[in-house]
């Protein structure tokens, strides 16, 4: 029994974190928001170069041959930086569904971005960035080229995740030889890992502000009301963390409990993100309620991803069915 990450896994995540802290600051993220593209080609190219996008692809597809345990810390770091575009979708859901296909090498080299709507989503994210969209077709997964589809944009709350409705999806595309549930679990787990990183970032931003901002002649972080608010949020985040890491293990090893474990991870990570966002905003007070404050870039990502790939309520029901028996 060993519940930790090996040296290589930790080093790779640390390297990714350093790169993103240097090359993808909140100012860069704001730039993406203002560009209206929901995507940053420069950071995408860096992620492809580093092997982040291809971590879960087999070596025969030009990938790194890793599994979800090798990948989960990377997704967490992408969440910490709130990297926009279909990044966790491509590197987990996409890599899993497209292995062995002609698209796989494109995923590895960064030329093929992938998005998905496998749970009957009304609004599909990232369709103007992704070359492929994966749709559920009964118990199968079908890949369609977004260029062949009619899309109609809708305005989303997170400008790093542009939304659209799709039509013309009833036929065509390519059926993929993957298990739909395994792919859905990958998306739910990746979104949970991303939310974990995002939550830590929001608490870090709130901590900086609480040390800096003075009222009544002292930093507001010295007041117990602020301390306890933040401690409670940290509690949620730190107890979601092992659930996310365990789900990565269950996914990597094909455990019988995979779906239960993934659902536990997504339920806890979604609730942690909700608490972290709310607490971080409250610590900021009025400045947190402004467009200028960078906190909003991260909160809005959290609010978009909490319901994505199944909200906490849906996933709690999946855990209930596994633990208490089917209703």
């Amino acid at each position, binding site marked *: *029994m*060993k*519940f*930790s*990450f*090996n040296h290589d896994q930790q080093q790779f995540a640390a390297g990714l974190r350093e790169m993103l802290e240097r090359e993808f600051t909140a100012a860069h993220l704001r730039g993406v928001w203002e560009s209206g593209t929901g995507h940053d080609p420069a950071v995408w190219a860096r992620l492809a170069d580093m092997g982040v996008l291809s971590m879960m692809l087999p070596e025969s597809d030009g990938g790194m041959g890793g599994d979800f*345990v090798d990948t989960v810390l990377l997704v967490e770091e992408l969440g910490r930086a709130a990297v926009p575009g279909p990044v966790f979708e491509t590197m987990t859901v996409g890599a899993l569904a497209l292995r062995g296909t002609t698209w796989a090498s494109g995923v590895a080299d960064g030329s093929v971005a992938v998005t998905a709507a496998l749970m009957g989503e009304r609004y599909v994210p990232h369709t103007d960035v992704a070359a492929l969209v994966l749709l559920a077709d009964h118990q199968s997964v079908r890949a369609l080229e977004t260029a062949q589809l009619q899309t109609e944009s809708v305005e989303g709350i997170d400008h790093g995740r542009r939304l659209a409705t799709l039509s013309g999806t009833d036929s065509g595309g390519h059926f993929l030889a993957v298990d739909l549930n395994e792919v859905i679990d990958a998306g739910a787990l990746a979104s949970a890992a991303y939310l974990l990183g995002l939550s830590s970032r929001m*608490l870090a931003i709130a*901590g900086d502000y*609480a*040390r800096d901002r003075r009222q009544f002649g*002292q*930093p507001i*972080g*010295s*007041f*117990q009301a*602020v*301390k*306890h608010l*933040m*401690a*409670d949020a*940290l*509690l949620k985040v*730190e*107890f*979601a*963390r*092992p*659930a996310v*890491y*365990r789900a*990565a*293990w269950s996914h990597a090893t094909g455990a019988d409990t995979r779906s239960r474990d993934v659902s*536990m991870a997504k*339920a*806890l990570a979604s609730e942690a993100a909700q608490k972290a966002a709310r607490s971080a905003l409250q610590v900021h007070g009025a400045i947190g309620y402004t467009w200028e404050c960078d906190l909003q870039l991260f909160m809005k990502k959290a609010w978009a991803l909490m319901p994505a790939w199944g909200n906490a*309520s849906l996933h*709690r*029901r999946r*855990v*209930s069915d596994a*633990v*208490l*028996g089917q*209703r």
Partner: protein
Amino acid sequence: MDLTETPDEQAFRAEARAWLEANVPAEPLPSFDTAEGFELHRQWEAKLYEGRWSAVSWPAEYGGRDADYLKWLIFEEEYWRSGAPGRVSQNGIFLLGPTIIEVGTPEQKARFLPAMARSDEIWAQAWSEPDAGSDMASIRSKGTLSADGSEWILNGQKIWASRAAWADWCFGIFRTDPESSRHKGLTFILMPLDTPGITVRPIAQLDGDTGFAEIFFDDVRVPVENTLGGVGNGWSVAMATAGFERGVSLRSPARFNVAVERLIKLWIRIGDPDDDTMRDAVTDLWMQAEGYRLHTYMTVTKLLEGGHVGSESSLNKIFWSEMDVRAHELALQLLGPDAERMDGAHQRWVDGFLFSLSGPIYAGTNEIQRNIIADRVLNLPRG
């Protein structure tokens, strides 16, 4: 990462399970906060010691098995799963024992550890005072050296001393430098509770039993050899003990996993299948207990890989104590009118509910833990 058990760990689990199945009393023992129950629990502890299961994580020379933290967790899982009695030896084996192993002299280790492992001597803790609760550094009970320097002369009062009503020995911190204040000038001292000058006055708890007591010290003479960790170091010795308590050892996950399994059985037996709110709440509890188990396995792996557990252990204390209250609140809600009865088939849930309410208070209130997290984990400015 490998979340499966090694053959060695599996064998250890099987050995623990077999011994417990053969030895755990068929009927639950009376509460160890009663005179009769205390002695019955002492006898159970002696039996555990005979099987060399009373202090598995201690060195073999003191009666342990040199088990690493993982094996200790495995033992705990088997222990609580087997329905074995609560540990009346908790203060000694899990709190003071590891501290003596860390900072005690060879003579202290030889004198105290084996007797502790056998539960020949059961320990009470004496930290809080009437004016030093959450603000523990304002301790006023005094220790003065005798003229020949061979004894401490203790005066003052301790309160909320758990197990003190029936225990044999106690440990506490005393202000040995009269010029000192706050965390300085305190000394950690061990003494038998039948030392002349000590008066123990049991306090009836919320559940009516006497789990804790006041201890009055009136010119109590204790040999200086009973100083643990050096004169004036009492605060850091106590914090090492408290850190261990909060961190891993006080409440291992298994007891909560077992309690939640009982809650699930109760839900399946008497819950309303159409009550989705209750179904969700029970599921939340399962996730919390499971989350706590996973969190502990992560912490223990970190320790085994040479890492340290610092102030983040305060997160654990808040988490398990709030979870325990919530589990019992839900059980009482399920029980309906039977939740009002202090006798009968569901007594264990009602007793457990009352006991759970002490969790957010003892070993440092959860508000103090939140301060520690904010100051030392989140690095917020001190108030």
